[in-house]
């Protein structure tokens, strides 16, 4: 169910403030794409426009097109809520629902929408999603315990299970490992490698080694100065970005000379 993403001339505004300007990018299906760049360069903002999550903030709007296998996410008649069932998201800090058990957290996308699902289907979905997130073996004996009782890394994998239970085409990850210890980070990175087989994965990260480890292609975002919009500077295969960047700013950033 993996789909490609094509972004054409995208501008992102908060009110009158232009946050991200003129992004053109083509993300292939079944690939891992990393967004890197200094803080405040708009990479998270841009990520959130890919499933219209930025609209949760008042005053946020975009100009341009985001095509999911050719369908414009911002076309007329498109329902942002429907978009989010196609493009799932995992956040910086693990955020399982504290009132729900591990099982209900996985089923949240189904249950919160009031969909009927038979018991056996639910069990199947829980198991397949948790297996998909490499969490099944750790939690299969305590599916009825609260999700917030897991460790940070397990919680984040629970959130990934929750996202894939909705069966999206694309999974967006906004710095998914920044709140985790190195061992948990490794588990998530391994998982991203596996997810690639079935989903288009887009990950924002501050950790350049992580980008180099997990991604096929890397996009470098930068900002000219405070109050200026963020821009996509360079987008190429990860090996190229890290070994042979075409733009000076990219080279400075990946070599650690600034940022």
């Amino acid at each position, binding site marked *: 169910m993996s789909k490609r993403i094509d972004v054409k001339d995208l501008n992102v505004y908060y009110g009158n403030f232009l946050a991200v300007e003129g992004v053109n990018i083509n993300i292939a299906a079944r690939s891992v794409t990393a967004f890197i760049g200094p803080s405040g360069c708009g990479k998270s903002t841009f990520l959130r426009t890919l*499933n219209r*999550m930025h609209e*949760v903030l*008042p005053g946020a709007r975009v100009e341009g097109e985001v095509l999911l296998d050719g369908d414009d996410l911002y076309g007329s008649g498109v329902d942002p*809520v*429907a*978009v*989010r*069932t196609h493009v*799932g*998201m995992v*956040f910086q*800090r693990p*955020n*399982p*629902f*504290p*009132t729900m058990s591990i099982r209900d957290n996985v089923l*949240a*996308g189904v*249950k*919160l*929408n*009031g969909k009927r699902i038979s018991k056996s289907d639910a069990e199947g979905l829980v198991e397949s999603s948790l297996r998909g997130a490499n969490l099944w073996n750790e939690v299969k004996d305590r599916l009825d*315990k*609260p999700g*917030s*009782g897991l460790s940070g890394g397990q919680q984040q994998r629970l*959130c990934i299970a*929750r*996202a894939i239970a*909705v069966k999206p085409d694309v999974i967006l990850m906004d710095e998914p490992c920044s709140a985790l210890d190195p061992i948990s980070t490794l588990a998530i990175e391994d998982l991203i490698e596996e997810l690639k087989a079935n989903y288009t994965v887009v990950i924002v990260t501050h950790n350049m080694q992580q980008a180099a480890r997990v991604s096929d292609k890397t996009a470098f975002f930068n900002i000219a100065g405070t109050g200026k919009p963020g821009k996509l500077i360079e987008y190429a295969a990860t090996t190229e970005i890290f070994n042979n960047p075409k733009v000076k700013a990219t080279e400075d950033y990946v070599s650690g000379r600034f940022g």
Partner: protein
Amino acid sequence: MASITTTARRSALTRNRLPRYAIWAAVVVGLVLGAALSTLVGFNPFGWGVFAAIVFTAVYVAWSGVVEGSRKAKDKLATCLVVGAFLVALLPLISVIWTVLVEGTKGLATPGFLTTSMNGVSGIQDNESASDGTKVLGGIYHSLLGTLLITLWATIISVPIGLLTSVYLVEYGNGNRLSRGITFFVDVMTGIPSIVAGLFAAALFATIFGPGTKTGFVAAVALSVLMIPVVVRSSEEMLRIVPNELREASYALGVRKWRTILKVVIPTAISGIASGVTLAIARVIGETAPILVTAGFATKINTNVFADWMSSLPTFIYTQILNPTSPSNPDPSLQRAWGAALVLIICVMILNLVARLVARFFAPKTGR
């Protein structure tokens, strides 16, 4: 510093300090001198306590000032004042509780107190029980019922309005003009004196249904005016502390906003909301003035909040004290009033306890 008068033998860190027995010595001096002083103006235990406390403070602080210096003395004075304030505050509050307990158990222990109304109880019966020492007739069944019904209706009106308003303020308002207006006016409502809330309900129903419309429902409306701001405030606070990450997680799963609010936000905050609602009920259940001007006072059982006057525990207490059933023998009335006061306080305490338990046991579990 004044206290650095140490000899060379002592280290630089030691200072002159009061000996350990100083505080007890000051207590003894205070008690003795206090007794002497209070005898001068006519001895009673209360005067003794006051004088003893003053003498103790003076002796202790002065001693500290001489030995330890003025900074330590000021610190000791402040401690004495703070502890003193605490004791002074405790006295009347203990006295209130004690009075209600002692006087109230008499009334409450009378058979039939909780199960009979004041119907048919007049000055004649009270005079008989006062002169012959027979059991005091009459009870608070009608008032207990009235209090429960009026409070129930006030809750039915207030909770949906209050909860939905807080949802609007937190989830939809985004600090726009309407939400700022609502916040301001909820603050104003918090400050409405309870009797004015009663007058409002009375005026409202008098305008619509004609003058003198007094029913339990009018009282419930009056209590709602007092209850809504409390519910809005507490629910708003609880909804605001629900982390935004949970809302985003739900939106990212393709869940609509209203379902997110109903199934994620409110369940996460429900223990706090329930606790706030319980405290709001506890606050209005003891209100007297608004019920006095909206539901009148009845001596009979009335289960219909939409017709006829209705009694409640607070108005029962008030009328029994101010207008005893038998003006020449007010004791039976006082006994009933104190019994009702005890029942009312027990209700309030139970509600407060329930609120705390709800907040503690229904909070989202983190059980590891």
